[in-house]
């Protein structure tokens, strides 16, 4: 439980820092924060095996990377576009990868990662490595056609994949029920015979429980499963979104009533974890985040020659 708390807090503080660096102009372009949704990545990925099970997601990817234990320094340096970044400054916030962790990105095109996830699952099955794929996407992405092409293939071929819809209620300025004929998104797999479960994505323990169930199903060779995580993003869609399509009260009331971190903190206190221990943890995390930010500020930019590397194999 303490580990869940630590990871969620790390994501929260990391994202707050990223927001600050963006405000200072150190991070450019598009940057989507995961604040509010921490319990989803942490709860789900804690049920996976790093290096064996693969994970793929969209552009709101910092949290999924941190939850997989990827070095915060390399992530932050990618956000600031530096040579030491995890994609050598060429990908930015939305496009980050880690072969060691079997983390397959970070994709800016809404919905595209879902088909790729089915491909990852195909390879798990093909090579019999016992791994499963987890493909995350948003409530908005759930309306892309290729998602359903992937559902069909995944069930048809009984692929080991957990489809995860992070339903944070909004796709940019559009709320779920203004864009979705079936807004109970866990039912979206029904006509493909893919079972779906709706989960409270603000409760990390509930998320973990659902993840265990899903992993067991998929590892047993029963084919894909769909999880809908009900969650909420506190910040705007990206750093440039003032979020005028919803009221301050709405955001505040979620924060007050169902913040995943506050919620777990209370449970920890009830379980007898001391105030001091929690304070120390907070301090350690702040140190990690500060170190990441310093690293990201001080690392040099990539050399101009980097523009032409990795376009095709070898020299170009």
């Amino acid at each position, binding site marked *: 439980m303490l580990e869940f708390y630590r990871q969620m807090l790390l994501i929260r503080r990391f994202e707050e820092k990223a927001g600050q660096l963006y405000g200072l102009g150190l991070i*450019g*372009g*598009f940057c989507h924060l995961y604040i509010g949704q921490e319990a989803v990545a942490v709860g789900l990925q804690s049920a996976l095996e790093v290096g064996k099970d693969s994970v793929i997601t969209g*552009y709101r990817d910092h949290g999924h990377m941190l939850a997989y234990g990827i070095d915060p320094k390399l992530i932050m340096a990618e956000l600031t*576009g*530096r040579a030491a970044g995890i*994609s050598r*400054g*060429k*990908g*930015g916030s*939305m*496009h980050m990868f880690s072969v060691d962790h079997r983390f397959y990105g970070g994709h*800016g*095109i*809404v*919905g595209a990662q879902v088909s790729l996830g089915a491909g990852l699952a195909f390879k798990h099955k093909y090579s019999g490595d016992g791994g499963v794929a987890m493909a995350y996407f948003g409530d*908005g*992405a759930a*309306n*892309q*056609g*290729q998602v359903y092409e992937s559902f069909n293939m995944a069930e048809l071929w009984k692929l080991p994949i957990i489809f995860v819809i992070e339903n944070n209620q909004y*796709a*940019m*300025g*559009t709320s779920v029920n*203004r*864009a*979705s004929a079936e807004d109970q998104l866990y039912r979206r797999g029904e006509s493909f015979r893919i079972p779906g479960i709706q989960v409270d994505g603000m409760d990390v323990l509930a998320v973990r429980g659902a993840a265990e169930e899903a992993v067991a199903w998929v590892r047993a060779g029963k084919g894909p499963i769909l999880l809908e995580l009900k969650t909420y993003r506190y910040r705007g869609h990206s750093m440039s979104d003032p979020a005028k*399509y919803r009221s301050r009260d709405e955001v505040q009331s979620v924060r007050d009533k169902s913040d995943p971190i506050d919620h777990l903190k209370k449970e920890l206190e009830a379980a007898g974890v001391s105030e001091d221990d929690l304070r120390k943890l907070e301090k350690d995390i702040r140190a990690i985040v500060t170190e990441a930010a310093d690293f990201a500020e001080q690392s040099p*930019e*990539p050399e*101009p020659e*980097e*523009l*032409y590397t990795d*376009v095709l194999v070898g020299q*170009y």
Partner: protein
Amino acid sequence: MTGESRTMNMIQAINSAIDVAMGRDEKIVVLGEDVGYFGGVFKATEGLQKKYGKTRVFDTPISECGIIGVAVGMATYGLRPVPEIQFADYIYPALDQLVSEAARLRYRSAGEYTAPITVRTPFGGGIFGGQTHSQSPEGIFTHVAGLKTVIPSNPYDAKGLLIAAIEDNDPVIFFEPKRIYNGPFDGHYDRPVQPWSKFAESAVPDGHYTVPLGKARVVREGNDVTVLAYGTMVHVAHSVIQETGVDAELVDLRTLVPLDIETVVESVKKTGRCMVVHEATKTSGFGAELSALVQEHCFHWLEAPVQRVTGWDTPYPHSLEWAYFPGPVRLTEAFKRVMQD
């Protein structure tokens, strides 16, 4: 009647174009991601849902292939949809509908059915957008027979061309250079951009007018070299011409298909030299077509090889944006090369 003129930036001009067109023709509908309630991420459709209602201006799910597909269907049965693709980088899921349906319907039905849609989409770089918010895919569309491709470079043209596109009876891809929505970016990224209000092209009539498709504009007359450009690069080229003092003739193409080949040829025959400028990658870019056409039509008049100044043949990078963008340094070098022989 065009009525009074007002000062508009490009977003306001585009908004006004749609407004004026919708007011005249109830067959026009606007659809896209966040275009209704929210008024579009760049605010190009702001206020239109309020004015024309939710049946004529409406939000869609994030489903580009579906958005264009239904727009083509609506158009075939008599509407004039103006779908927005939020960024040109997201147009690829809709390519199938654009290429295989919209572009070919007229041909394969021997003219019985057409798809008069106008796809508006912001494109181009210089905004730190990285791979998925910066691309210039115009060359993909100019390569498809059956589509028209339009790219304005200022508020006056944006409104006139957009109305012409909406009223046109064929499918048009209308690329909006988002870097110059608020003011003409001259390529000097370290200097603030002057707002449109300081430029004559921001005087935009309130009412209806068109700028015809297929007519280029000579932005500046000159004798020594012809520069062919469109969108943001018109302004980058213009400022480099002024800074270097080259006596260049600058042609803003305004529409790539149909292309105003006459204006191009006339200018190159006069100057004997030609330089083509675009942000898109070089290989198979629209510059290759322009350079081939110039060679075909003006071979005996050319005194030097046609120069192309373009984005590098790489994906659009996250860092190193200004090393990627074909800015003043590269243009200045190209002017030296083209004036050499």
